[in-house]
């Protein structure tokens, strides 16, 4: 069974591996675009307040995207 200490040790190994890569390489590995329904369907959206944006996400996005408080 994996412990929290094992998990942290594994993460630190990942951080150390990332630190050995130049930023350009890290960036290339990091930005991966996949289509997100609804969210990616408009070229522009704006919200007066962050609370409005959060409420819009809760109401309009599929919960599995993870932009709401619950799945």
């Amino acid at each position, binding site marked *: 069974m994996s412990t929290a200490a094992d998990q942290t040790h594994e993460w630190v190994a990942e951080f150390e591996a990332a630190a050995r890569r130049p*930023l350009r390489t890290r960036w290339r*590995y*990091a930005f*991966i675009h996949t289509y997100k329904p609804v969210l990616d369907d408009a070229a522009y*959206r704006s919200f007066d307040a962050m609370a409005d944006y959060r409420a819009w996400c809760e109401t309009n996005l599929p919960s599995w995207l993870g932009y709401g*408080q619950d*799945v």
Partner: protein
Amino acid sequence: MARTFDYPQAEEIRDALARHGVRYLFLGKSGAILLGFPDTTQDADLFVEKTAANSRAAVAALRELGFALTDAQAAEIEGGKDFVQLRNGPFDVDLVFAPDGIESFARAWERHVEVEGFPVCHPDDIIASKAAANRVRDRETLPRLRAFRDYWLRQRRS
């Protein structure tokens, strides 16, 4: 449409925002990745100081980069929105003018970090904004992000 956000584009946005004198910080996962956090993301979150002059400068820089902002959209951004999602340019960008969990731009700027010319929020601010947002995706990321913050601070001290 398949979209990428490659490193030369990141350099372009950094340089364009600098040319226009925009006060901003990379926030969210894109900020953490700049600091060395190994993870994936799809867009850049830019925490932009919310003043009319700064917003005007940001609009000018974004248009220069190829974002197709109408005059009405530009006026909205300049008028003071808290959050703007842009999918009308060469890559995806979210402009965040009032992120959850961060007291003020000035406070975040005081302790920000420069990474190869990219201005980035301190990891404590990245964590604070995710903790305050408390979305499912944030809760999934936070334990590993906190471990990264501790690692990053150890590296800075050594």
